[in-house]
């Protein structure tokens, strides 16, 4: 192997400009975190609503929610991203369509967040539904029996338990969203993968570049994991198996 190692490359300036390669990588890290966290907010909010709707005693709502989940789960993420970026703007009235294509600020970022958020929301919805269905039926009935309305039963009895139960699978989804955010490079969001490709071409120090970027993805996954573990620990309900040490 005749590879020329140069770890100092990160402090060197890029070919066209004042920045160092380290600046590129850090910018990329910032965008990755921004995309992942913003998308996560959408995913959890929408996913909770859709997942809950899949369990309510209204057939129409269940059907709608199920269709939503099936739609977003059965098309590859990258294809969805292209649909949002190239296809959806065409469906708007001409003026709006033109504005989106030409003048919308941070168009790539917004598209990536929306796409990743909706994609993940379908997965979160599945977890929420599984969590709700894993509760004993008696909980639901008990809620109704003491005079709570159906929404109140969900709000005060079912959902608080369901969310605690699904924290472990939600942790995986949260880690996945960082990994999945890497597809955003395909529409030009300047996140880590984008910067890695750019830096490799510019500096020709491929191994150092990809090692550094891979390490940063690692760190994201690790912090996401620890963060969720903290929430899991703080939200334990005394008396349940998960709370026994």
């Amino acid at each position, binding site marked *: *192997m005749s590879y020329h190692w140069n770890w100092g490359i990160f402090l060197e300036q890029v070919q066209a400009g004042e920045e160092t390669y380290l600046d590129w990588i850090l910018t990329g890290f910032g965008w990755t975190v921004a995309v992942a966290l913003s998308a996560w907010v959408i995913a959890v909010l929408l996913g909770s609503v859709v997942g809950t709707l899949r369990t309510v005693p209204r057939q129409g709502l269940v059907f709608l929610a199920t269709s939503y989940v099936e739609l977003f789960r059965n098309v590859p993420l990258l294809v*969805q991203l292209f649909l949002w970026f190239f296809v959806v703007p065409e469906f708007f009235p001409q003026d709006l369509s033109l504005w989106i294509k030409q003048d919308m600020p941070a168009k790539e970022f917004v598209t990536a967040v929306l796409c990743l958020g909706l994609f993940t929301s379908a997965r979160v919805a599945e977890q929420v539904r599984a969590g709700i269905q894993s509760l004993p039926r008696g909980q639901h009935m008990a809620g109704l029996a003491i005079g709570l309305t159906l929404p109140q039963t969900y709000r005060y009895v079912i959902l608080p338990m369901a969310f605690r139960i699904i924290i472990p699978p939600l942790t995986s989804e949260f880690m996945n969203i960082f990994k999945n955010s890497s*597809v955003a490079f395909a529409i030009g969001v300047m996140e880590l993968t984008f910067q890695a490709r750019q830096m490799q071409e510019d500096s020709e120090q491929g191994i150092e570049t990809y090692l550094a970027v891979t390490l940063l993805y690692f760190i994201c996954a690790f912090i996401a994991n620890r963060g969720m573990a903290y929430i899991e620990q703080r939200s334990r309900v005394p008396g349940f198996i998960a709370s026994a040490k």
Partner: protein
Amino acid sequence: MSFFTQLDFSVLAPSLPFIWTGLKFTVTLTFIAMSGGIILGTLLALARLSALAPLAMAATWYINLMRSIPLLMVILWFFLIIPLITGYPMGAETSAIITFTAFEAAYYSEIMRAGIQSVPRGQVLAGQAIGMTYSQTMAHIILPQAFRNMLPVLLTQTIILFQDTSLVYAIGAKDLLKAAEIAGKNYNRPVEMYIFAALIYFAICFLLSRLVKQFQSRIAIIR
């Protein structure tokens, strides 16, 4: 809104052979990565559960490594970086096949591990009691049951794999998505082509997941 009148799906017919070639690559890639991934994954699972500490540790490390970095990164590693180390450049298609096999092996191995662990311990002891060696017990008693128990999950993972193959876009391998994109450029109808590609993916994945569901309930009745 005059958009729907502008949609022109007449370009689909002439581009079908092209899309078909792309779809064939996507399916081939899925099948090779599935077969290779399950075989490699089973070996990895056995290694992870093995009593040899270094072997178990190496397998665990490999699995955790693959599972914590984005697939896209792994694809780029294999395509751009491994050739730098070995000195042999690879075509995008070959690289994709190797990458997906190696990557999916980590995911399949976790499924197989769960499957192996779901077989009651008495089965292993029974195998040993009638004088079978470790490999005989595994091959004739444990793995067939593990595989059967996990078949629905393995198939679900394969559907995910099928969707993930679209990421070979990043290294320019000509799969279904890339073919649709090129056709869209050639006929200047990218919108129709992206919609068409999405429909194909949806139809295949939806159908497969329905089949897995039916299959699951059939297995459940037998057991």
